[in-house]
């Protein structure tokens, strides 16, 4: 039953990340919009402290924007699921005894 739940839930998450995210609104989010309107968005134009492998949810090197977003979403969702499961496993280890 739990295997079915993991697979079902993960499948829903992956479908959203792969098929829906390329069509998400590209308007600025609440904070970005306020920063634009109130003239402090330029402050964010600093070199990021770490360079991220997949900046802005677009897989580098894929020219098609929607495909780049899909691939980034797919990989990100799998990474997060793996980390969440591992962390949960580690944290519950004590209660197994």
């Amino acid at each position, binding site marked *: 039953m739990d295997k079915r739940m993991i697979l079902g839930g993960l499948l829903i998450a992956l479908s959203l990340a792969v098929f829906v995210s390329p069509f998400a609104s590209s308007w600025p989010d609440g904070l970005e919009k306020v920063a634009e309107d109130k003239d402090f968005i330029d402050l964010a134009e600093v070199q990021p402290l770490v360079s991220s492998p997949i900046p802005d949810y677009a897989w580098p090197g894929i020219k098609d924007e929607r495909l780049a977003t899909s691939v980034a979403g797919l990989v990100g*969702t799998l990474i997060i699921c793996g980390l969440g499961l591992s962390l949960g496993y580690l944290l519950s280890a004590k209660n197994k005894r």
Partner: protein
Amino acid sequence: MHIPDGFLAPQVFGSLWAVGVGGLALALKKTKEILKDKAVPLMGVTAAFIFAAQMLNFPILGGTSGHLLGGVLAAVLLGPYAGTIVISLVLIVQCLIFQDGGLTALGANIFNMAFLGAMGGYFIYRLFRKKTGLIISVGLASWFSVVVASFACAIELAISGTSALSIVIPAMVGIHMLIGIGEAIITCLVINFVLRVRPDLIYK
């Protein structure tokens, strides 16, 4: 409302990094004491779902978009501590891998969206649940969690000297009162779905 590098002054992001590390240590300790085996797969699936749902920006009035933050969703399924950890995990991965939210501002983002969003949201959910029933309390808590997080974010920006308090508070809270409606609708739909297929997954 992932704060990027450059918006917060060092004393503000430094303090919130300290609060973030301290709070996460506490949440990890608490989770270790109470996490049940059956909640482990739910942690992975909830984290994956919230990450994916955060990519789905929905349009709001005036050329602005919003997306699910997921604090109340995570806490209703996993409890306040594991819920906080899941949201923090999402924020850490978004910052390090997707450049969404600055590394300097990570403590602030964890404070706003995980501590206030999941833990604070859970508190509001429990406050209302007996009086209003589960779904309405989920909706109220979701809305409040977004508005409270945006209020905290505005105060952090003001203390940093990024924008004046009298300007940034109404601007941030105003727009997030609308985004919070989206948060409430999505969270209620998902919890309603869980109640239909696996009601046992709701955290007791």
